[in-house]
Each structure stands twice: as C-alpha cells, then as structure tokens.
C-alpha cells in the first residue's frame, strides 16, 4: 500500500493563533448577545488542547469560528499562518452528534469530505478502510449508519474527519451524547489514535476529567461571555490509562479546575 495514505502516518500538525477573537450575536429582539469576549490562544503544532467550560460559555462558538462556519465579530484567527475567512482545507471537524448521512453507507460517509473537496476517491478509499480498521470497525464499510450503535457511529464520524488528513482536528463535545461506558472507551481510543497521528487538536468538552485525561493543555473558560480563565499544562506521561486518573498530579489538575469553577459560581459546595 502507498505509504502516503497509510492511516497511521503521522500528520503534520498546524499551528493556531487566535487573537482578540470576539463574537456578538444579534438576538431576535435586536439586542446584542456577547457570546465570546476577547479571547487569545496560541497553539503550537501537534498540541492537544482541551477547552473546558460550562454550558453556554461560548466554547462551541469559539470552535465554529475556528472552523470558519460562523463569521467572527472581531479579532483574527490564523491557521498555519493563514487567516480564516472560510473553512480552512487543513481542518477536520467532529461534532457533538455523529451527523452521519443515513442514506449513505459507512464508507461513503467517510469519503464525503473527499467528494466535496474534489479529491481522488479511489486514492482515499484505502485510507478510509485503514481508519475503519483502526477504530475496530473493519467489516463495517458497507453497513448503513442505522445498523451501528452510538459509539460506532461517532467512530465513523471521527474517521470522516481524519480521512482528509487534517493538520487541525476540531472536536465539539464529541462524546457528549454517548453513555458513560462507551465514552470511557472512546476517550481511551481517541488517545491511541491521536498518538499515532499527532496532529493539532482543539477538543471542546464540559467534562473536567475528559479534558485532563486527553490534553496536553487545558484551557478553562468562564461563563458567558466566554474568556479563558486559566491555561493548564498537563504533565502526565502518555499513553495515559485509567490508572493515571489515580495519580496525585491528575487529582491536582482536577482540583485546580474545580476550584476555578467554584470561584466563578459554576459549581457550588452544598
């Protein structure tokens, strides 16, 4: 097989530079809704950054701005040195729900971005098959989404994002809709997968534990209007296992984030 399209080939992560990014929505009655206060984030290539915050803090807004599917109000976003004005070709997105097209087979769903970008389908079919095998869905290429479980569907959605060989992978609470046990497995699998490709990841979540487990860096966002409260570098060795969660460092990071949420009134002690 062509080494260029091998699934485990390392991807070239891109850097992301966000400066003074804001987003103001117009509400129905004409008022301004500040969804995002000036936010600046610099991400180096190959970094796994988790952004954790309460519901409605603007973290999903931030992601859609970086994805280029929603216009920003002010500020700049540079991906790989290029200003984001439309969806950047080196970016793949995984959404909260799998958003698989029910009328397409698994393989056709994965190849959707290839079709849209007008790339050579046959060339990427091998890569799609590799990705499927890697997420444990080897024999499922010709199945329809309705034949898969929730966890399997989200795996397919991840394959669909990775088939475009994105230098930056954006994930918007990708495991939020899954049950706790499936989620546990997905988190661990995502780590394995990411360690094999090592691209840049922006991972949005509302789970503190998920963030600390997966990320090199955790950015904590405060309630609306969103801004970054702390920037935590997670120094726990990879690959991390469930046992890592018992390490004192892990607990320390979790405590730190908890304390911020308490200070901001997101979490209260009864």
């Amino acid at each position, binding site marked *: 097989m062509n080494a260029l399209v091998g699934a485990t080939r390392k991807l070239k992560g891109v850097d992301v530079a966000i400066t003074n990014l804001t987003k103001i929505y117009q509400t129905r009655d004409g008022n301004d809704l500040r969804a995002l206060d000036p936010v600046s984030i610099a991400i180096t290539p190959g970094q796994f950054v988790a952004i954790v915050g309460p519901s409605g803090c603007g973290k999903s807004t931030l992601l859609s701005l970086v994805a280029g599917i929603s216009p920003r109000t002010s500020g700049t976003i540079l991906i790989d040195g290029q200003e984001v004005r*439309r969806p950047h070709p080196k970016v793949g997105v995984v959404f909260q729900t799998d958003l698989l097209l029910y*009328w397409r087979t698994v393989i056709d769903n994965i190849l*959707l971005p290839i079709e849209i970008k007008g790339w050579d389908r046959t060339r990427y079919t091998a890569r799609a098959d590799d990705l499927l095998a890697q997420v444990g869905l080897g024999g499922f290429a010709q199945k329809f989404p309705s034949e898969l479980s929730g966890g399997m569907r989200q795996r397919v959605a991840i394959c669909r994002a990775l088939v475009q060989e994105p230098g930056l992978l954006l994930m918007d609470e990708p495991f939020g809709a899954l049950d706790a046990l499936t989620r546990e497995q997905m988190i661990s699998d995502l780590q394995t997968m990411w360690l094999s490709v090592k691209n840049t990841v922006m991972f949005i979540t509302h789970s503190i534990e998920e963030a600390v487990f997966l990320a090199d860096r955790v950015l904590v966002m405060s309630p609306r209007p969103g801004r970054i409260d702390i920037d935590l570098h997670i120094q726990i060795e990879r690959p991390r296992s469930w046992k890592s969660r018992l390490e004192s460092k892990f607990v320390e990071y979790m405590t730190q984030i908890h304390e911020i949420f308490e200070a901001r009134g997101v979490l209260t002690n009864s």
Partner: protein
Amino acid sequence: MTHTEISDQKHQERRQRRKRRNVRLLVESLAAPTVAIIVLALWQFGVPLLGLSAFILPTPLQIVERIGTDYRLLLNNTLVTLVETLAGFAIAAVGGVITAFAIFYSRLFERAVYPLLVAMQTIPKVALAPLLVLYLGYDFAPKCFLAFLLAYFPVVIATVVGLKALDKGMVDLVRSMGANEWQTFIKIRLPAALPNIFGGLKVAVSLAVIGAVIGEYVAAERGLGYLQLQASSQFDTTLSFASLIIIAAIGVVTFWAIELVERRAVFQREAAK
C-alpha cells in the same frame, strides 16, 4: 444432557420460532385479500338475495364481464384519462418542486407567493372546472390543468417541509468541509428531502386522477369520466361501475409506480432499522 443434545434442542426451538413467525407473516399477508374476497362474495350473492336488478346494483361478476366485452371502448377512454392525469401530474411535480426550491432559497419569494398558494388552496378547485372550460375549451387542456391544479400544492408543501426539516448540523458539517451551496444542495438537502418529496408525489398523483376525471365530468367527449357520465345518463349502471373501477385502478397503478421509483431512489430510513 450432552453438549450436542443441548445444541440440538436449541436448534429445534429456533426452527419452531421461525416457523411460528412465518405462519404469522402468512396470515398477515392474507388478511387484506381475505377481507376483499368476503366483501365481494357478500356483494355477489347479496344482490340476487335482495332482488336488486343490474340497473340498481350490478354484481362484481357482471362488472367484470362488462369490462371484458367493452374492453376496447374502456381502453380508449382509459388512455385519454391516463394521459391527462400523467401530463397534469408531471407539470405539477416539476413545477411544485421548483416552486418549493424557490420558496426555500428566497425569503422574498416565500413572503410573496406562499400566502397566495395557501389562499388558492382554499378555493374548491372543482368549482373552477366550468370556468376552465370557458377559458381552455373542451379538449385536453382543462382536464390537464385541473389535474395539475389539484396535484401541485401537495408537492410544494411536502418539498418545502422536507427542505426545512434538515438538521442544521448537517449543513455546518459540509460547510466545514468547504462545500458551496450547490454541493450542500446535492449532497445533503436534496437526498434528505427526497422521502418528503416522494410522499408529496404520491398524494399528488391520486389527486391528479381526480382532477382529470372531474374535468371530464364538466365537459368532455372522451375519457373515463365522460364515459361514466354517459353510462349513468343511459341507466347503464354496469358500465358506470366498470368505468369507476378503472378510474380507481389508474389511481392505484400510478401510486404504485411512484412507490416503485421511490424504492429505487430513496434509502428507506426505517428499512434498515
């Protein structure tokens, strides 16, 4: 008990379960034909028992016999009605889908046209038939137009609803891949709306048959509606029934044809579940 005995027993149980399931499916599939046969039998034997003449109520066999003897007359008129129906339906299908796209993509068009369409829908279109004869004459045109008029609205509504029902996340998804609006339409919007569109088409084709026949009732020299009216005026109830049955058959066959196309074109969401 040995291992093989257990697996034998399991095997047998499974076979029995499958058998029971097959029996149930067979019974279910025979339910409708059985009811139909009972109704027809009651009709066939009830008519002489009640002493009704063919002039009041012909028996099913008499009607079938009549279809056999007059098949040439019926066939000629069937073709007339069928062509009117299909022409009206085709225009309604294409026009309806295009209107729906315009409504979906242009807010102004929606504001300008949608209320009028709804208002138009409240007009009893049967009442338009005499006027259509005045404007379009006695021939093909008013029937075709009436068929179109009845069929158009359900296509528009179903298509608009189908287009609007799309999960906005899907649009974000393809946008994030760099899709333009044309790609979004072809890859997402249209396939997602197809089940609705076909639903509308199925309603529309039945209505198109009604439109064509009503057009023939008002003023015509050919067609099943005309034939039926002629038969009734001559107290030929059997021929009237024969025409009626063929009109119904046109409805069933066209509906079924669309369903056939649908099955090939649309992935059934439920089918795989």
